[in-house]
């Protein structure tokens, strides 16, 4: 039998280099993705659900709103991508909460890792899930009759913009994940707040069709701004205004939620 614990004869490093930190982040992201293999329902959740949403809205609302489903999809799909992004960020909080409640987070903290690696790993894994569901939704959309009105580069820019916003919004999810008592509470809170917040926007219907008081809210909603920017980049229309608005929102979310989340995490562990 081999000796399990031969003494280490090397000097001990005083800190983690940024490159090691990145490697650790990638390893932790890998782990978050491998988890899906043993929990296929999560894959179903963030793959099939958005497709069902797209199908439902296209065929139930499409006729009434735009007369043709293809035309409606061209209006709605960029917004559906945005809406879906909000829901996918929930997995950051759920995963983090599971780690905290099950003791995995403490195990990670007892290892010589970069302090930021566990969170960065979660968020990186989330970005990969985001890319996956965007590709899935776009492909479904194209099959159902969505037509890109701009260039491939514009579409890529829209994807990047959505991902940048996802990166910022993940921190809201981190805070919920740290404060919640259990992963299912994160899910519940996410569903009940994100649904109204994302629907009260111009994702499914143009702002002009809503009552005045609601319009005021919808116009400044980050969901509307991001949906407008994506629409502009994918279909055509104004880009700069809504894109800058979205980035401003992302910056504000970061400024508020990064310190808040880190503070809450420090208090919890």
């Amino acid at each position: 039998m081999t000796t399990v614990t031969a003494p280490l004869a090397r000097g001990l490093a005083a800190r983690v280099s940024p490159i090691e930190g990145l490697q650790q982040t990638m390893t932790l992201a890998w782990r978050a993705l491998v988890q899906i293999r043993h929990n296929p329902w999560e894959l179903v959740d963030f793959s099939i659900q958005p497709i069902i949403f797209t199908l439902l809205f296209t065929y139930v609302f499409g006729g009434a709103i735009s007369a043709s489903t293809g035309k409606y999809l061209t209006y709605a799909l960029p917004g559906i991508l945005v809406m879906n992004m909000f829901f996918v960020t929930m997995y950051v909080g759920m995963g983090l909460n599971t780690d905290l409640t099950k003791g995995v987070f403490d195990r990670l903290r007892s290892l010589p890792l970069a302090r930021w690696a566990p969170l960065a790993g979660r968020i990186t894994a989330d970005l990969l899930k985001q890319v996956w569901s965007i590709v899935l939704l776009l492909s479904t959309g194209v099959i159902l009759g969505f037509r890109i009105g701009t260039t491939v580069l514009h579409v890529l820019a829209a994807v990047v913009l959505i991902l940048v916003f996802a990166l910022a919004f993940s921190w809201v999810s981190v805070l919920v994940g740290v404060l919640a008592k259990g992963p299912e509470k994160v899910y519940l809170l996410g569903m009940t707040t994100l649904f109204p917040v994302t629907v009260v926007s111009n994702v499914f219907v143009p702002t002009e069709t809503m009552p005045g008081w609601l319009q005021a809210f919808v116009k400044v909603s980050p969901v509307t701004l991001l949906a407008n920017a994506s629409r502009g980049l994918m279909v055509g229309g104004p880009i700069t205004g809504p894109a800058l608005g979205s980035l401003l929102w992302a910056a504000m979310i970061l400024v508020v939620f990064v310190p808040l989340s880190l503070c809450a995490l420090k208090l919890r562990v």
Partner: protein
Amino acid sequence: MTHAIWTEGLVKRFGGTVALGGVDLAVRTGTVHGLLGPNGAGKTTAVRVLATLLRPDAGHATVGGYDVVRDAHQVRQLIGVTGQYASVDEALTGMENLQLIGRLLGMSRRDTKQRARELLARFGLSDAAGRAAKTYSGGMRRRLDLAASLVGRPHMLYLDEPTTGLDPRSRLGLWDLVRSLVADGVTVLLTTQYLEEADELADELAVIDHGRVIATGTPEELKAKTGARSLAVRPADPVDVPVVISVVGQLAGVAPEVDGLVVTAPVTDPAVLPAAVRRLDNAGVVITELTLRNPSLNEVFLSLTGRPTEETTHTEQTEGALT
């Protein structure tokens, strides 16, 4: 004499509760040091401070010569932690869990795989290597936990209540594993509520109560100090009870307690057992029961603190139900 772990006046408060009220510990390199105490005594808090998971409010602690606050990163390179709070990822397989840790520690893909296989084999988990950890039994989970804390070949291993909630067979198996690790030269810090476990594994003990070390020494010293072994004799005939009381009283040097037919007295010298047999035989007393009982944790506590442990049985039940 070298010390793997050294603490001085360690204090930790949670709100108004004092979890550690000035704890001094000295753990010699290459030994098993037991922290013995009831639930809520501060054992886990002490381990969490030594594992760099909690910052002490006062006092200081060094592990392998490194300060747990100032040199936390170095300390983390020396330790392996196994406890109910530092656990494995249930959604990953046994193999993946060990691979995750190996990769995080900067080991190559090949070394990690080899190391994981070796540990899984040693801990009897090879057959379950490809199954998600959530399907493991309590005993298998603890073994995987222990394996995970050994991936990086730690110099110090913290085992926080490693066998709480395990069935007797799994407990014995885990004890064997711990002994083999010590043979490899690892320093072990073990917390437990069971005197038997401390007795089996620990070279030295610190008894903790209300966040303070109330006694230290080898298990033998503590038992001698507490004198809590008890001699119990039950005569076949109730008529013989006075004779038994007199014999047991002479041997123990104190007045025995009588409960029905059973006469009990605390003793320190194991030689009282043959002496009791001889004298009772000479007196013509026929006995149905004669035992020399080791002190239970409750009795050690009773004699050290003047009060019994609270919640010990209660905790065993609830934690057993969880695993």
